[in-house]
């Protein structure tokens, strides 16, 4: 798809997103996994902006797991109890031999990253554009996960624009 237009940063963050999704048992790669991927790859403007606002990989994973376990308890199921009953064999992660597809939200965020780069007249696509693409979906899981960590999309965007490399020339 559009991966060939990405620089190293976003490529690494997409690879890391797949690893996060696999580990957390996400049977599709969601927009929140892209966010986790940015944190896991830990390079580039986006990771800097996130960490400057106190968003760590560990905290974000916790929120992701917390959201799933709350979703289950809303229908009366305790993940902890199921885990205890099933014993050591219970492993939420997705087996290595199973492919994990991208969710429509994640695809959309990646496409949006491209549009953000064009809009900003940047001649590359970096992790900052991916993060802007993720933040574009207010209803997405990533934005709600960030809200639980006390970070609003606006604050994060402001921070990104402060740290983003600027290009001479046609920008005004």
């Amino acid at each position, binding site marked *: 798809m559009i991966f060939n237009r990405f620089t190293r940063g976003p490529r690494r963050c997409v690879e890391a997103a797949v690893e996060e999704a696999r580990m957390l*048992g996400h049977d599709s790669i969601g927009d929140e996994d892209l966010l986790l991927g940015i944190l896991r790859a830990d390079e580039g403007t986006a990771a800097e902006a996130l960490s400057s606002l106190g968003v760590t990989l560990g905290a974000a994973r916790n929120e992701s797991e917390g959201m799933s*376990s709350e979703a289950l308890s809303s229908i009366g199921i305790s993940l902890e109890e199921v885990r205890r009953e099933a014993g050591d064999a219970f492993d*939420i992660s997705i087996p290595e031999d199973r492919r994990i597809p991208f969710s429509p939200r994640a695809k959309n965020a990646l496409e949006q990253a491209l549009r953000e780069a064009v809009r900003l007249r940047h001649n590359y696509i970096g992790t900052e554009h991916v993060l802007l693409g993720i933040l574009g979906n207010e209803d997405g899981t990533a934005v709600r996960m960030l*809200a639980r960590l006390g970070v609003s999309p606006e604050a994060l965007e402001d921070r990104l624009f402060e740290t983003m490399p600027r290009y001479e020339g046609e920008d005004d």
Partner: protein
Amino acid sequence: MDKNTRTRVGGLDDPREGLESVVALRRMLEALEAAQVENAFVVGWSWARIAEVLGVSKQAVHKKHAKRIRARYSGGEGSRR
């Protein structure tokens, strides 16, 4: 918009939470099936017997679980009867 006031049941008042509970349940179900099949295999149940209780074909169970479980117990007591 959504101020995250915890609606207790993912019902009509919050369709998204209701739908998300389905996603979480599906993921948990997959992990639970994998765990229970593994548990049965470890105590010596055959694929045929596991499949029978799950109500699916032996081929289906084998295709979905054998590779993963064998990889984990390879070399050990390959307890397949």
